[in-house]
């Protein structure tokens, strides 16, 4: 019977103006979604290329200076005899000076499917030009990767994830809201019942035909997206496709469950739309809010203030000596009483002591902030399934590499890299080293390794599947179509 109903439904869809309207609008929306997402990917990549070119210019200038020193066209100032009046020409071989002039780029590459899901990638910086100067002057916390119109930023982007998350369920609602009620209202139900069809058969047939139509469109748009971002055939594209199928299957079953309630056409339509609104426009935000821990803003809001406090306090009489002793003991493992003269350079050591204290304070604030956010993530992993749309969105953003956890991992990586680079320079100062170009090129560079945490995406997809199965058990109970 189901086969016959499927054939019947396919013929109905072929003649249905409603289906034609839905398909045309879905195709047009998918095209716009691809344009919207890829526009952001292009801006992201362009900003990254600009940062790379700036760092390349810095590196070339440095190489030119080294070459100039070698062939005596550049004569750097000797710090020990500098009169404070004549022009100061920095010597990049001096590790102290090197801290100012050697730039490294720390960059978060575009996620594998950035362009299909924008996620949080607009909200935080995605590259930093690093020197061994204090961290607080390098990280611009909570700033977007690129200048974006505030209204546009607040509205968010229309990308393929939004298309799949919002418009495909809306299309399903438009195709399925009267899956049973229309037959009842138009009086066809007794005829179908007489032919041996029951309500479950009709629901399954409608679900298979109409659900498949929307899923096929969503997958086709996704495949175009994979090709455009160069990720066709990747693991991320597979996860994305699986997630899309699971999510749309969930919505198909949910809408069939509403259609099976016995409400009339108007009731089914109103409830389908209301459920769409509740699950997609309302529940993600409210679930996030309910799970959000307090204290997310405070550590970062005070990070700069704590750094300034260190600056002020170390100007008090005797404070610098105490700070130097503390840093020498706790971080540098050096005894200045027996250290070489060059390690006790006037002006350099106090500054590096202060930098170290400021970096420790600032990094601690960033890490505390990140820990609070990670706690939020854990809560969302544990309870986010309460809103299947939220679970789906988080899973898909993680697949696309536009999730906040990835950006947080990048920031923590930047802090670690900065510490390694600063320590390299500090050791150079304490051990009276001279840096040549080769030594700088051998210094640490920032490397990014993609986090390998499939938990969120697996939980997200699992939760929508479980919800779908539970709803299916309710919706597909075998009941007569008529009477």
């Amino acid at each position, binding site marked *: 019977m189901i086969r016959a109903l499927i054939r019947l439904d396919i013929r109905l869809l072929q003649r249905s103006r409603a289906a034609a309207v839905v398909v045309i609008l879905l195709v047009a929306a998918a095209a716009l979604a691809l344009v919207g997402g890829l526009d952001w990917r292009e801006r992201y990549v362009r900003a990254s290329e600009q940062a790379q070119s700036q760092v390349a210019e810095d590196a070339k200038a440095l190489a030119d200076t080294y070459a100039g020193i070698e062939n005596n066209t550049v004569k750097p100032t000797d710090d020990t005899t500098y009169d404070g009046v004549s022009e100061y020409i920095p010597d990049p071989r001096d590790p102290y000076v090197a801290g100012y002039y050697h730039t490294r780029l720390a960059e978060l590459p575009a996620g594998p499917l950035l362009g299909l899901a924008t996620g949080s990638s607009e909200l935080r910086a995605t590259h930093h030009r690093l020197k061994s100067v204090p961290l607080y002057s390098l990280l611009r916390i909570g700033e977007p990767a690129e200048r974006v119109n505030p209204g546009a930023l607040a509205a968010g982007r229309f990308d393929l994830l939004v298309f799949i998350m919002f418009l495909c369920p809306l299309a399903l609602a438009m195709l399925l809201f009267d899956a049973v009620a229309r037959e009842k209202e138009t009086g066809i139900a007794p005829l179908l019942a007489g032919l041996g069809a029951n309500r479950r058969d009709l629901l399954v047939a409608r679900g298979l035909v109409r659900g498949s139509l929307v899923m096929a469109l969503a997958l086709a748009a996704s495949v175009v997206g994979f090709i455009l971002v160069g990720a066709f055939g990747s693991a991320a594209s597979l996860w994305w496709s699986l997630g899309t199928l699971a999510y749309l299957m969930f919505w198909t079953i949910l809408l069939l469950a509403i259609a099976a309630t016995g409400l009339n056409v108007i009731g089914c339509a109103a409830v389908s739309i209301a459920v769409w609104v509740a699950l997609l426009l309302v529940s993600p935000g409210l679930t996030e809010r309910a799970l959000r821990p307090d204290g997310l803003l405070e550590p970062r809001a005070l990070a700069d203030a704590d750094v300034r406090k260190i600056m002020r306090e170390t100007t008090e009489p005797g404070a610098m000596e105490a700070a130097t002793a503390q840093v020498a003991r706790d971080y540098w493992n050096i005894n200045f009483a027996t250290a070489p003269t060059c390690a006790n350079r006037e002006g350099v050591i106090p500054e590096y002591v202060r930098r170290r204290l400021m970096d420790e304070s600032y990094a601690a604030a960033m890490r505390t902030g990140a820990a609070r956010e990670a706690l939020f993530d854990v809560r969302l992993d544990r309870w986010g399934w309460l809103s299947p749309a*939220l679970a789906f969105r988080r899973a898909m953003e993680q697949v696309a590499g536009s999730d*906040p956890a990835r950006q947080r991992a990048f920031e923590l990586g930047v802090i670690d890299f900065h510490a390694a680079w600063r320590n390299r320079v500090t050791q150079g100062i304490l051990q009276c080293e001279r840096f040549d170009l080769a030594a700088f090129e051998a210094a640490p560079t920032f490397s990014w390794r993609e986090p390998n945490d499939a938990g969120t995406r697996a939980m997200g997809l699992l939760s929508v599947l479980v919800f779908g199965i539970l709803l299916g058990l309710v919706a597909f109970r075998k009941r007569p179509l008529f009477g």
Partner: protein
Amino acid sequence: MGRFSVLASLILETRLVLRDRGALVTAALLAVILIVAFIAGRDADRAETNALQASAQKVQAEWNAQPLQNPHSAAHYGIIVYRPRAPLQAIEAGTLPYQGAVTFLEAHKRNAPMLSPASVRNADSRYGGTRFSPLLQIAGGFLALVLGFLIGSREQRRGMAPLLRGTGVRGLPLVASKTVVTATLIAAATLPALVLAGLSVGGGDAGLRFAVLSGASLLHLIVLASIGVAAGMWLGAARFGLAAVAFCWALSVMILPRMIDIAAERAVPLTQRELGERIQADFELGPDGHGGSDASAVFENKILADYGVSSKEALPVNLDALMMQAEEEHRGSVYDRRLGEAEQVRIRQDTIRQASWLFGPTPAMLDFSARVAGADAATQHRFDESAEAFRRDLVGRLNRHMAANSKTGDWEWTPDDQYYASFAAFRPNAPTFADDAGGLMPSAAALLAWITLAFIALALAARRFDRSAQA
């Protein structure tokens, strides 16, 4: 039906809606959604406001108690200011969560506000969110449209329209009663949350803002309900009608505004790098407080001439402090010009973004909501300007105090112990409703245009019903 036809239609429509479980469930769901959204938004606002206010108090206390040091050192170490709460932030946060709430003020440099609250909230839904007003406009608006359509199309869909015409029902009373009943249903669903929100509104002109916002929101819902009823009367018999209405709403609220955003940013582009490069290039044309430049030499000669001395050591004032202040003033004018240009770019982009208002009333209502709540980009701009004015005053006072009380080259000089505590905390004037009223006009005009269009659509739907009866 005669002269009582409106009343009779109204009673009939009311009875039909009260028997419609789907419509009632939808209205009840909307009521619950809005109440929960209000409570969630209020809690979110409290958490954010407490975080920023506590930080501001701590920072000010640290400034007051700072060790005695040279005023210019104090200017370098600077102070941090936090964005004040918007008047209706609990129910409409507008663009503020996506813009920096913290500005570090220091000598020589105007820093942009950083740390947007949304950036630390992990995922934050931008299609609906948690605040009352956007949810009312987006979710409530969509439900009003769909309910209007379903109520408007009831007779067409069931094939009962000829029966109604046969009983002498005229188009206008029918359309009017359907619109009134739909709007009343939606208003009733909205009312509990509106009352709750109204009770929680703070002092100042927040009450007036809330009243204006509530009135505009109800008008917006009526517009959408009217469009829904008119569409239902026109397209009710067609099965694709609901799909067309739902997708038109999605286009006008979810898709086109965002596509127009992209077009606006492409038409009037500005990148952070361009802005930074322009500012840096202009800086190099002015005096340098900590280094040499042609402009510094010109300034030094001018000061020497003003005091009639031939060397800076002979000056009765501290030239270093004067030079730093001259640099401050030059940089201030550069920032004013370049950031003013950037703000003009933002305004031009926003003007282009208004094209989305042509496709539906909700984008205009969202703009109106953010502006009336004092939570739009203009509010952020005012915060940025207030912080800069505070910075210039602070740094200027520190530089002038140093110039007047110390000699050139004396970087060790410090003021008396109570000096730093004498500075008042950052408390910008709260924007009044009158300040924001001008910005409300375009979106208010757009809403009025949509009301007119909605009523024209209703009148046309009524005439169509009457004509089909005559035919």
